[in-house]
């Protein structure tokens, strides 16, 4: 992607995401992710209507007027977005759609966190950690993150999700929110996902292209896997071949869902042929009402 297109793409995503977040998502986001508890904020003069139970008698006697304690929810939430930038997401014709969806989801989630004054960190991974940004507050920081994510030129091709989960787990000392955005075309990440699920609030967002469900009825074509570079001959006209592909994909989906459920990890499938924001909002609304 050339520089100009990249910049305009970043601008567009930032703009759209900001508007969506301010209008719709921020509230949902906050209500889905509550803080870990109530913390004392300050003591101020009692005004009519305050809860009398919260009067701080020690201070009141010292000041000779009623003072009341105020509390607030724990604000110091930390959101870490683990983003798959492997070749299966980033590379080649049908993957263009996946890449855009990933960028959009990233922007929406990080901006929602920023609006709620949370700290946002990001891990971009392929077969290595492509970039690690420590959680920080502030909208400027988040906008910067979004730009970097959209513009990322990954050096690796594969997708080592286990490594990304381990790295995040080691860096994130306090309880936080971890959202994994990936196509989950990877294996061997379950032990790390289990650990992560125990310590943090984890949501797995799976990007799904229509071609990830069914193989279309086409002529014979040689396919190359962007990650392993393995090639196969795909006789798309043969029903047996298409069925085998569909069954394989369905089995992948089912086992992914079951694995996440068992670990009390939220699952969301985002389809590339529909608006990702709408799918995200619907998911949050559903989760809030639970």
């Amino acid at each position, binding site marked *: 992607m050339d520089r100009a297109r990249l910049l305009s793409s970043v601008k567009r995503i930032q703009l759209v995401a900001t508007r969506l977040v301010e209008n719709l998502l921020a509230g949902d986001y906050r209500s889905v992710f509550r803080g870990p508890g109530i913390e004392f904020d300050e003591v101020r003069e009692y005004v009519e209507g305050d809860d009398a139970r919260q009067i701080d008698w020690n201070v009141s006697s010292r000041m000779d007027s009623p003072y009341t304690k105020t509390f607030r929810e724990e604000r110091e939430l930390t959101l870490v977005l683990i983003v798959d930038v492997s070749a299966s997401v980033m590379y080649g014709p049908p993957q263009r759609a996946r890449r855009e969806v990933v960028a959009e989801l990233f922007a929406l989630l990080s901006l929602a966190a920023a609006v709620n004054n949370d700290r946002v960190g990001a891990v971009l991974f392929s077969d290595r950690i492509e970039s690690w940004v420590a959680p920080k507050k502030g909208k400027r920081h988040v906008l910067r993150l979004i730009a970097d994510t959209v513009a990322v030129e990954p050096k690796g091709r*594969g997708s080592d999700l286990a490594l990304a989960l381990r790295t995040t787990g080691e860096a994130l000392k306090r309880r936080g929110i971890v959202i994994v955005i990936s196509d989950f075309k990877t294996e061997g990440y379950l032990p790390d996902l289990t650990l992560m699920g125990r310590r943090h609030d984890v949501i797995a967002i799976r990007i799904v292209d229509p071609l990830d469900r069914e193989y279309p009825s086409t002529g014979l074509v040689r396919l190359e896997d962007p990650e392993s570079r393995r090639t196969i001959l795909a006789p798309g006209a043969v029903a047996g071949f298409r069925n085998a592909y569909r069954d394989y994909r369905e089995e992948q989906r089912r086992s992914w869902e079951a694995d996440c459920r068992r670990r009390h990890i939220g699952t969301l499938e985002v389809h590339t042929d529909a608006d990702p924001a709408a799918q995200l909002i619907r998911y949050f609304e559903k989760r809030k009402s639970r």
Partner: protein
Amino acid sequence: MWVLDRPAMLLLLFLLPPAVYVRHFWKGRGGKLVFPFGSWGGDGFRPPPTIVTLLVGLGAVAFWVGVSFLIVALAGPQRVTREQVYITRGMDIVIALDQSPTMAARDFQPANRFEAAKEVISDFVVSRENDPIGLVGFGKEASLRVPPTLDYPHLLNVLDSMRILELGDGTAIGMGLAVAALHLSQSTAPRRVIILITDGVNNAGEILPETAAQAAGSMGIQVYVIGIGSGAPVEIEVTDPDTGQTLRGTVEDGFDEELLRGVAAAGDGAYFYAGTNGALGAVFEAIDTVERVEQRSLLRVQQLPRFQLFLLIGLCCILLDFVIRRILAQEVL
């Protein structure tokens, strides 16, 4: 024998392994679409074997076999035949064979005089090279069976098919000689020879043997006469080729040796008597040895191009691959 006109072209075959590699195994080749069917760290999607992919593999094999055939065709495959050809004119020989019933006398191996004579004649023919040989049969009448020709296989066929009594009951030695001489009359051969084989007395025909022999002699044709038979009474058994009747009997009349000597003398040749198989063979060997003209020959090499066969097979193989890929599998790229 097969040879190649341009064997150097076969070096093109060395280009095949790299071409096969580039087409089927090279990672950097084009003509493929990126499609994430894999799973990092795992197996990913393994397509089940289908008949179509199997056929496509078969087509690929056919394609490369076809290309190999094209390269061989390009190298110019030729069938080479070597043939010894004579550049000199051989001598003309006409063999006049008695087909009268007495030739059925069973004093010769394997069956009778006639069969023994046929056997010896065929050995004689086989031993000659480049000498046109003809065949005249005579009984009551005489007839040309084969004109002097180098087509020995044809001659031997006809000889084999000759039967006693075909030309009637009788021995027209004079007629036989005359017919043989007639068919040598226009010959341009350096030597012309008649070999007359008979066991009897001239008892038919309008031409006297001496007259015919003299005529032959005057044309410069040599006449060898071979008298066969023992003279003693012998049994005969003969089947009439027209009626299918089998006749049996005993012959006693020996042959007219004086007459035969006279014929040979008139024909500037020689008379031989052959009482047994061995003697008959020896007589022919003697004639074979004496009657030789100098022959010069050369080896002619003939090359018949056979590229079309290879080209056709190659083209068919490549078109087979085309049909499999484009029609059956509907290949996109």
